Each structure stands twice: as C-alpha cells, then as structure tokens.
C-alpha cells in the first residue's frame, strides 16, 4: 500500500468497503481530486471497489432516455407507480437500510409487491431458517473462538480476501491465542481452490453430490452405520474419509461451517437446511455455528427491514389490506419471468437492464449508482449517489451487524434514500394518493 499521498489529500478513517461481504470498516479512504486515490488496509478487491468511484458528472435523471430534471422525473415516476395495477418494488439489497425502509413504504402506498432483489439467493437461506432455524454468530465470534473452520463450497481466500485475517483462521482470538496454529481449516469443494491450498484437510466433492455428502456426515454424527460401498458410490469419497471429517467436527470446541449465501433452487434450499441441521445436531455435543459469506450488498438489511415492517422476510405481496408472504410466487425473478407486473421500481438499475426481455409491456423506474448510459427500456432513471463513497447509509453485514457506510466524496446526485423519500412524498401527497 503506497503511503505517500498528496499533501492536500483527505483521510477518511473507518470507511466501509462494500467490495465484498466482509464489509471491512477499517479502511482509510484517501481522497484527492474528487476521487478515492487510495484505500489503506483494503485488499486488492477493495482497492478496486474504491477506485471505481466515478466522477459525479452525468445527469441525475433521464426520462425515456433523455436527460431531465429530477422534479419532472419524480412526477413521471409517481404517475407510473400510482397508476400501476401490479407494481413491484425491488432491488432493496442494493441500497442502505434507510432507503429500504422508504422502499417498503412506497410498496405499501402503491399496493404492490416488494422483494429484496433478483438473484433469489435468500430463498434457500430463508427456507432453511423456517425449517430448522439457525445456529450462528457474528463474525467476531469466529475470530475469537473458532478452532475449526469448514469451508463448504466457498473460497473466501479468493472471494473475501480479508476474511481469514479479520474474522477467523489467521486472526489471533481470545480463545485461539496462537491464531492459525490453534485452528484447523477443512475445505470441501469441487476444485483445489485458493482456500483449499491453505487447508489442513481437503475433500474434493462433485457439486451434484452435495446432498449425499451432507446426509452421510449427518448420519455419522447421528451414530448411524452406513454401507461403505453406497457412500463411496453416492459421494465419490470413502466412508473412512467422511468418518475422519465427522471426528474433526465433533472434536472441535467451537466449530463453524462457512457456506455461501444460497440460491433459488430446490436443492440449494435442502442443502442450506441440511447444513443448519447438521450444525444444530453438532451444537448438542459441542459449540458449532454456521455462517454465510455475504456479498457486498445489503441483502441482510433487506431481509430485516422486510421482517420488521411487514412481518415477512422477502417476496411480500402488499396488494391487499394486509401484507401477504408469497415466497414461491412474489420473488422478483418469478414475477418478471411471468410478466405479472406492469411497473417496476428497481433500486438496482442493472436489474432493469437484465430483465428487459421479460419485462416488455412493463414500465420501469430505476435507480442507478453509476453514470451508465441511460437504462434502455426504463421510462425513468435516477442516478443516485454511490453508497459507501458518495452517500452514507446503514448496511447489515451477513451476520446482521449493522455498519454505517459514510460518504467520502461529494455528490451532485441525491442519496437513494433522499431520492425515494421525495418519491414517497409525491405518492402520498399528489392527487389520487391513498386511493384503493
């Protein structure tokens, strides 16, 4: 990290990097010439994230592809949303909690659907929590206590470069005073990943064998006897190796399974639930937790805001008098794929871009952070200040810890929460507001 900065450079300590799910908040962003010239403590990925902070020059609003005044854009957007019969507010995971709260209020006023985002990664984790619950912890607990880390089809060394340094494995902790030397790292993955290269134990497992493998481990932990041939055939790994792994898990004082954020398919849901089940059973014998490696977005915030303001974690239908939970119906991808919405307020502009094919006949109001070309097929586009560099706001880390991202650069464009607060105001006070 180069430490020599121009004399007029501004230092912003404790800045938050949204480059990955680590949400490292010990970054000193160094600002000069209206951009972040250095991000001290950041990994390469984080440096790139800060460096991508663009100049804040392009227009703040487009209507039908033409630059326009924000006021006009708001009027136009409000008209679209107010007249919509089946509107969707989505992309909540791209914005801060403050904006998410307003987004839910907008969905409530326009009587639409509201959902976190397009990828549906939350589906499996929510499904799993409903089936099993979850035994977890904040990332700092992993650092202080975990003497066994099992990386299950995740490669944090590559995707979350500072994870081991900050939250576990390499870090010194209260109950793991020698850091890495006090911990075991097990990796189960398809390939010899960067994380695998650092592991003490590695099991190579084909992706489509994940459920068979989880059931094998669960059975061993439960004390069931298994047929070695069947296990080898179903998992491609010998029963003996699974027994060894199970022993490691049971011998841990505080073990953690690191897994990914999930996916929208059935197998991923079952897999997530099985991991949580395994952890719950292990918790009867020792301390064990599961932790999802988040991404740099605010998916956890979206889940929490939706829970507290509607009672449900995602895919909420606010068309009726009370919120309804439609986890298998009102997700963004399903609604768009099926053409069941006639207007979309997307707080995550790329979502609108991605779904052009399927959303024909549907009006789009989009918020974008970058000065991209106007979003094709969107009627109204607002450029908002980039969260974490140009705008502040609270982001929930994947472990639920709220972290306030702050602006380090000035912005002409409003923050997402400011912009949609104006939009909500239009919807509440313009003629026709509150009509059923």
């Amino acid at each position, binding site marked *: 990290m180069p430490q020599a900065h121009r004399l007029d450079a501004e230092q912003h300590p404790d800045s938050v990097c949204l480059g990955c799910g680590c949400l490292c908040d010990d970054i000193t962003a160094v600002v000069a010439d209206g951009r972040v010239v250095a991000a001290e403590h950041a990994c390469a990925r984080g440096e790139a994230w800060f460096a991508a902070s663009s100049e804040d020059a392009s227009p703040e609003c487009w209507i039908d592809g033409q630059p326009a005044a924000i006021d006009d854009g708001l009027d136009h957007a409000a008209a679209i949303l107010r007249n919509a019969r089946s509107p969707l507010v989505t992309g909540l995971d791209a914005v801060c909690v403050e904006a998410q709260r307003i987004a839910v209020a907008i969905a409530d006023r326009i009587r639409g659907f509201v959902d976190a985002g397009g990828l549906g990664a939350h589906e499996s984790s929510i499904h799993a929590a409903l089936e099993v619950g979850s035994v977890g912890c904040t990332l700092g607990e992993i650092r202080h206590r975990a003497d066994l880390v099992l990386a299950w089809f995740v490669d944090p060394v590559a995707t979350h470069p500072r994870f081991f340094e900050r939250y576990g494995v390499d870090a010194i902790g209260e109950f793991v005073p020698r850091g890495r030397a006090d911990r075991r790292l097990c990796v189960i993955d398809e390939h010899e990943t960067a994380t695998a290269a650092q592991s003490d134990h590695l099991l190579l497992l084909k992706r489509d064998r994940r459920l068979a493998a989880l059931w094998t481990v*669960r059975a061993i932990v439960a004390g*069931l006897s298994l047929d070695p041939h069947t296990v080898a055939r179903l998992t491609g790994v010998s029963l003996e190796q699974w027994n060894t792994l199970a022993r490691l898990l049971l011998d841990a004082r505080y073990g953690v399974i690191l897994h990914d954020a999930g996916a929208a*398919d*059935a197998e991923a849901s079952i897999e997530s639930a099985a991991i949580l089940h395994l952890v719950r059973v292990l918790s009867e014998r020792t301390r064990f937790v599961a932790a999802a490696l988040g991404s740099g977005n605010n998916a956890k915030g979206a889940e929490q805001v939706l829970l507290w303001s509607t009672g449900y974690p995602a895919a909420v239908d606010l068309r*009726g008098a009370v919120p309804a939970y439609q986890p*298998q119906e009102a997700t963004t991808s399903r609604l768009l794929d099926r*053409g069941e919405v*006639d207007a979309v307020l997307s707080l995550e502009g790329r979502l609108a871009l991605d779904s052009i094919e399927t959303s024909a006949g549907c009006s789009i109001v989009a918020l974008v952070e970058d000065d991209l070309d106007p979003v094709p097929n969107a009627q109204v586009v607002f450029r908002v200040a980039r969260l974490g560099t140009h705008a502040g706001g609270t982001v929930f880390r994947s472990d639920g810890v709220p972290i306030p991202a702050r602006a380090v650069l000035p912005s002409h464009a409003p923050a997402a929460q400011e912009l949609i607060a104006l939009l909500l105001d239009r919807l509440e006070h313009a003629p026709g507001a509150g009509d059923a």
Partner: protein
Amino acid sequence: MPLALRFTSASQLPLELDGILPERVQALSQGAIEKLLIRHGNRLEPLAEHFAISGSIDDGTLIFESAMPSGHGIGTGMTAGVIRVVGHAGRRIGAQMRGGRIEVEGSAGDLLGQGMSGGRIAVTGDAGDHVAGPLPGSRRGMTGGVITIAGSVGAFAAAGMRRGLVAIGQSAGAGLGYRMIAGTLVVQGPCAPNPGLEMKRGSIVLLDRAIELAPTFRKAGAFRPVFLRLLARELASLNATIDIRAFGMPLDLFHGDLLTLGKGEIWTRAGALASETQA
C-alpha cells in the same frame, strides 16, 4: 347445467379467483355473480369485467372455459361441488381445499393443492412446484384429499405432506416428499435424486427403473403386502395414470430417512437402485 365462465379480459396481470366457488355462487343470481369482486392486480373488480358468464350452477358445477395462466387461487377453500378448468391455469389451485372436486384439463401452475385438507384434484397435464405443499411459513403440507396428475411435476412435490394421496403420472423434480410426515405418494416416471429426504413416515412408491436414494435409506427386502394391492385398486378407481401392473410383483422396500425417525418407506421396482444400502 353448469355455470360457465369464459375469460374475456386481455389482462395478463394476476387475477385472484379465490372467492369464486360453487358453494358460494349457488345462492346468487346471475347479476350478483357478475358483481362478485375479484382481485386484479391491486384492485378489486367485478367478475364480469374479466369473464363472460353463462349457464347456471344447478348441477353444482362451475367451469372456467378458457386457459388462464394468470388466474390464481381457483377453488381456494372449496368444500363442495365441482370446478372444471379447461386449459392451463395458474397457481394455488385448490389451496386449502376441504371437499369437492377440481378437474383441470390442462396444466396447473405452482402450489397446486397447497395446504389442502380434503377433496379431489385431477390434472390432465403437468403441475408446477410445491404440489400438495404447505402454506407460507408452515411446515405441514397437505393433510388430506387426493391429487392425481397425469403429467409431470416440479420441485418439492408432497413436501411436508401429512395425509392423503398424490399420484404423478410422469416425472417429479427435486425435493420429492421432502420432510414428508405421512401420506402416500406414487410417481410413475423418473424422479430427481434423493426423494423422501427427512421423511418421518409415509409411503412413496417410485415406479421408474432407476432411482437414487440417500445413504440414510436402508433396504428391508422385496415384498408384496396387501396394502399395495389396495393402493393399486385405489389408483385404478381414480383413473390415475399409473401402470398398476407394476404392483403385481414384489417391490423393493427401503426404510428412511433414518436421520428423522426412519419410519418412512420408499417402494421401488426390484433392482431399481444401482446399489443398495445394507447395514
């Protein structure tokens, strides 16, 4: 004479048809039926705005005459009478159904028979995900009734099922019988690997020739118990598209999921498992 509803609207937006039930319209005049409110997107609109209504319901039958993939919740909470749907229909058909009969001449969307506790649903085409599954936030699926589907189904069919019978004429997707509590499930065609995970009780009969079970299912042997004869007869009487000749010879019995009680049973054709678990 049945009461016929022909879909005349151009809208593709979701229509919630949950209040349109034989037992409800029975007592209503044509005019009153036309004024029944249905949810179209986020508004309540009269039925007549979307449907041409003819006939009357003196025989207890209500017919949706046209394909309606965006028409959801048909037969929700139904207790008596008959609903026929001609053409593909939307999601949540027969949700929370307690009695009566729904016939879909076409395919059904996701969540067919969600939270169903009684009655009979027959689908000539395919059905989507979560057939006979639980209501949102619940872990318990269908608690009674019969669903037959001539075609294939998506993921999580009969997940959390508590009671009743589901027969699937062709293939089934992942999560078949996941966390099944009890009940009976028959699949004629191929099914995704690992059916019946975490099932506690209940019977799953898989008639395809290649089945993959989790390692926590254990073989008991090949049997032909009387209950399979009864099941075959029941399937025949339901006109389910299941080849009941397979029931004429012993089937392999596996018990599981040993992780969760292990009192469930999966029946397969003899030798359908490439290698069998024995402990």
